[in-house]
């Protein structure tokens, strides 16, 4: 910053006071602010682990977080009330943080996953992965990419997603790669909160008004066919089933009578979403942000 800006700050410093502790300010964690999410971390892949396999797994976990975070960020300024706008932004920020760590981990484990950019491009690996891959190279599940619906749809999708991902992350805290296990340990706390947020709203909407119950069930029925792919990919069918049954019972809701969606790969929604997400970055492959 210039000296002028500093002077201006100083001129008002007394007015603003300095008792930050008093206010319990929330600021963006450093990991979100920094240029390199894995700065200072030893990213050597432990002997006995296949770097390409580790990278592919981190890409899948990272892409899920990135795409889900993107869909959640679309709620910004659209939530039912200010308090929920803030809560949803917190969840989106947590997942974005996970995506940055996991994409960086993938790139460090196996640099060949990172798309080639023109010579001299300053774009970091995490951004090359997020903004310069085609839809077919994204490894996320379909549940996170379908366009967002109403708040009932959001709550149903978030409940399914956070429940499966939390179960997977709890297991990953014991992963042989210390970087991935550390990322999982951090994520467990975040995901437990996301699941709690979704479960509370799930029960509230189910037991609230006739309309809220109708909308929640419609949302649940819409995302339910995508649940099978989710729990199979995360390999958490058993753990997830127990938790979901508990929430469904508390809400007085039956499992929807719709079968799993067949096929794999992506829906039509992903490439459209990425076209928007990647448009500025791709227009400036030599740009620095």
């Amino acid at each position: 910053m210039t000296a002028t800006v500093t002077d201006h700050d100083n001129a008002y410093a007394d007015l603003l006071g300095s008792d930050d502790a008093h206010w319990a300010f929330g600021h963006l964690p450093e990991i979100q602010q920094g240029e390199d999410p894995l700065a200072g971390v030893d990213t050597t892949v432990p002997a006995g682990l296949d770097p390409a396999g580790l990278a592919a797994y981190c890409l899948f976990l990272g892409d899920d977080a990135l795409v889900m975070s993107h869909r959640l960020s679309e709620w910004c300024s659209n939530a039912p009330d200010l308090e929920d706008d803030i809560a949803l932004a917190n969840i989106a920020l947590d997942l974005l943080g996970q995506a940055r760590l996991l994409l960086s981990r993938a790139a460090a484990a196996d640099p060949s996953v990172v798309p080639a950019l023109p010579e001299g491009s300053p774009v970091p690996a995490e951004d090359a992965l997020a903004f310069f891959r085609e839809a077919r190279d994204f490894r996320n599940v379909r549940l996170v990419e379908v366009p967002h619906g109403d708040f009932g749809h959001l709550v149903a999708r978030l409940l399914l997603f956070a429940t499966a991902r939390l179960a997977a992350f709890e297991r990953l805290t014991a992963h042989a790669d210390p970087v991935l296990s550390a990322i999982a340990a951090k994520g467990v706390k975040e995901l437990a909160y996301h699941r709690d947020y979704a479960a509370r709203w799930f029960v509230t909407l189910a037991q609230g008004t006739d309309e809220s119950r109708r909308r929640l069930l419609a949302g649940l029925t819409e995302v339910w066919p995508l649940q099978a792919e989710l729990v199979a990919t995360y390999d958490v069918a058993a753990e997830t089933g127990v938790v979901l049954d508990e929430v469904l019972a508390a809400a007085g809701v039956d499992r929807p009578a719709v079968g799993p969606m067949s096929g794999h790969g992506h829906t039509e929604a992903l490439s459209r979403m990425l076209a928007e997400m990647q448009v500025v970055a791709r227009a400036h492959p030599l740009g620095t942000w």
Partner: protein
Amino acid sequence: MSEWPLYEVFVRGKRGLNHVHVGSLHAADDAMALHNARDVYTRRNEGVSIWVVRADAIAASSPDEKDPLFAPAGDKVYRHPTFYSIPDDVPHM
């Protein structure tokens, strides 16, 4: 259309300090108020103790001895004590 009731939020930033009034928010019930407070006033900072209380459940007296308003406070919405900081030397607050 119904509006959620107003809650006052008190936060203890770390052990050894009093809870301090930090602001208010709307929530449908106590559980939601606690969750909202965590999101809004601590941005989910862990290790922070939070109290929430419905604004209409707070009994308050005026800080000014010459307070002319002897009428019961409860019927005057605009006199609820949002943003009223509790001094640090009040015990157990």
